[in-house]
């Protein structure tokens, strides 16, 4: 009886798949007791696009652009991870100038991504003024990327074996000028997120993740670094030009939302430093090496540090001009479990803030996962079987 009564008092608030707090589809079932969250369940997969299957039917060059479109915000880092893997398979050495330009673009992209995140998170917290100003200043870096590459979002900087464009002095000066402005503004925003009493009420002490939790839950990127877990692929396993331009890791100890703001904003200073350094000491030389159209048989694993954390690529070639298999793991999927754990015990009003704290990117993380293992585990599904499974599933749901 008692148990039943407790059951009746709980109340489930569904968040998503369509909800103003979520800019992308995913579904959270939040059980609340009054305003306090007692349980949370996540369901992903509403934005599955079949990209891993689609790349198997396109050649290596076409796939560069397909994979770039996994994420609209960190497009360059996806292409870079893929290029690094394919170049490794083909045994091709990319010229240092091209590698430096890749890192330069990646850091500009990190600036744009972190600015975007601070804006979104401020909006979720109900501080629209910060949102408006930070997105205004983000235009500066968007313009720089446009001047540099010709596109504002999917920059398409990479080609297999190098990069598409060079940087001249005029562009370098434009970047330096833009960075000066951004650095001044970033100092101001750091002051706002770490000292504004009203804003701290919504972030300080919210969603605290201890270092141990962060390690156990397998978090990556700034989310982990805000809990003092020194996890940054640029530092741990440098790739490309990060050997020549080593990045410093930014750590915070508190593990709450404030720490996640501070880590991301402090990383911006690190990006500014790296970009200035690269511009001042850009190695001369070619921009690309010739790549074969067919890639040697073999398989490889490639890790890079996306703005949201570690991005993982598995690439397998069968010796033709198309890949055999590409498997991608984006940072959001690693961080998602931490959200479900951290929201318990918090107020409903803090749920969107904690969710946004990991900088989620839902359509990036939606991959095919087989959950149904009742009729024996199957490694491979035929198209027919998959279709039949879908039909049966919906019959079951609606009967």
């Amino acid at each position, binding site marked *: 009886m008692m148990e039943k009564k407790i059951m009746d008092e709980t109340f489930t608030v569904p968040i998503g798949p369509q909800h103003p707090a979520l800019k992308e589809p995913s579904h959270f079932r939040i059980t609340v007791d009054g305003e306090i969250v007692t349980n949370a369940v996540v369901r992903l997969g509403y934005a599955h696009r079949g990209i891993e299957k689609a790349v198997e039917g396109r050649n290596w060059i076409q796939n560069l652009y397909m994979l770039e479109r996994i994420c609209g915000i960190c497009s360059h880092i996806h292409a870079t991870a893929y290029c690094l893997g394919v170049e490794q398979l083909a045994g091709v050495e990319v010229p240092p100038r091209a590698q430096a330009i890749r890192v330069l673009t990646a850091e500009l992209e990190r600036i744009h991504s972190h600015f975007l995140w601070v804006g979104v998170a401020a909006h979720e*917290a*109900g*501080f*629209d*003024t910060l949102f408006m100003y930070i997105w*205004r200043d983000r235009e500066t870096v968007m313009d720089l990327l446009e001047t540099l590459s010709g596109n504002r979002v999917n920059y398409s900087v990479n080609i297999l074996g190098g990069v598409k464009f060079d940087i001249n002095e005029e562009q370098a000066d434009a970047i330096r000028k833009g960075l000066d402005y951004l650095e001044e503004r970033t100092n101001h925003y750091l002051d706002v997120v770490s000292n504004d009493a009203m804003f701290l009420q919504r972030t300080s002490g919210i969603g605290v993740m201890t270092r141990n939790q962060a390690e156990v839950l397998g978090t990556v990127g700034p989310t982990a670094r805000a809990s003092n877990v020194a996890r940054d692929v640029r530092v741990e396993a440098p790739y490309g030009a990060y050997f020549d331009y080593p990045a410093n890791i930014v750590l915070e100890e508190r593990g709450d939302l404030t720490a996640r703001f501070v880590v991301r904003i402090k990383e911006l200073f690190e990006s500014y430093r790296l970009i200035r350094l690269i511009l001042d000491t850009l190695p001369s030389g070619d921009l690309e090496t010739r790549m074969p159209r067919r890639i040697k048989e073999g398989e490889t694993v490639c890790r890079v540090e996306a703005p949201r954390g570690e991005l993982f690529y598995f690439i397998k070639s069968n010796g033709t001009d198309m890949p055999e298999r590409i498997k991608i793991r984006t940072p959001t999927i690693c961080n998602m479990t931490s959200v479900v754990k951290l929201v318990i015990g918090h*107020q409903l009003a803090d*749920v*969107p803030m904690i969710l946004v704290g990991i900088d989620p990117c839902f359509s990036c993380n939606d991959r095919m996962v087989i959950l149904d293992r009742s009729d024996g585990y199957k490694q491979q599904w035929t198209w027919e079987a998959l279709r039949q499974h879908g039909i049966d599933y919906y019959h079951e749901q609606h009967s």
Partner: protein
Amino acid sequence: MGSTTIMNNIPNLVALLIFPAGLFLLLCGLFYEWADRKLLAQLQNRIGPRWFQPLADIIKLLAKEEVIPDGVNPTLFIGLPIIALAGGLTAALYVPIVGLLPSYGLPGDLIITIYLLSLLTLCLGLAGSNTLDRFSLVGATRTLTQLFSYEAPFMLALLGPAFVARSWQISVITTFTNNRWLILSQPLGFLVAVIALMGKLELPPFDAPEAETEIVAGALTEYSGRGLALFRLGKGVALVIGLTLIASFYLGGVTNPFLFFVKTLTLLLVVVALQALLTRLRIDQTVGLWWRYGTLLVLAQWLVTIVWHGVAT
């Protein structure tokens, strides 16, 4: 006899339906809503809406189908927005809109006005709890919780000027405050009154009851069409009345239309700046703020005023 009753009542009807309450007040409410949005946009370095945007929104909403969801009491669902708006419009009859004397007055009409304004919030809360939608229910709970937290400080803050004017009738208080800037003698009362008005109108940072990133549109989530339009008009009216009350009590009175617009718009600018500067509070933080600081501040103000008054006389 019949015709004379009608003739005698024409000024009353005009006052009720056209000016200063009724149509004029609705348009005034839309204008202040626009001014609020435009100023906020300017402070955020944006362009903001054009002058007819609130009017266009209302026309659009009035023209749209009103969906009555399953499981609600339809009479309440349709009736509550009308009661809310009617409450706001009635309150306007006791308030010196555009600097004119209030259309009606009776001893103690300050209390009536404050309660008529609360009717809007009460209707919002009831409208939310009338529907089965989860967001509406959470929104309604928050609306009513917020109502109980700011209402007492708001009332005490408005009673400060009433105390020094020795009357609870708005027309008497406004005559007393004319050219007496009570903001100078009761700054805390003024501060609490302005912030409580923001809580009443659910403006940021007190917009937890309708925080779109958490509970969509709060209590009004299920409302579309006419009901939503009436609630929005009601909020516009409440904004005008609230600004008028505070400007006439604390800012040296509003005795002519020019002073009215200058003072209320200046006050609106302060309200907008606060909206732009502050982050949304969670509902528990809102309640804590009002009961821990708001009420104490205004009580301290009262104490000072009473002691000062005792010493002076």
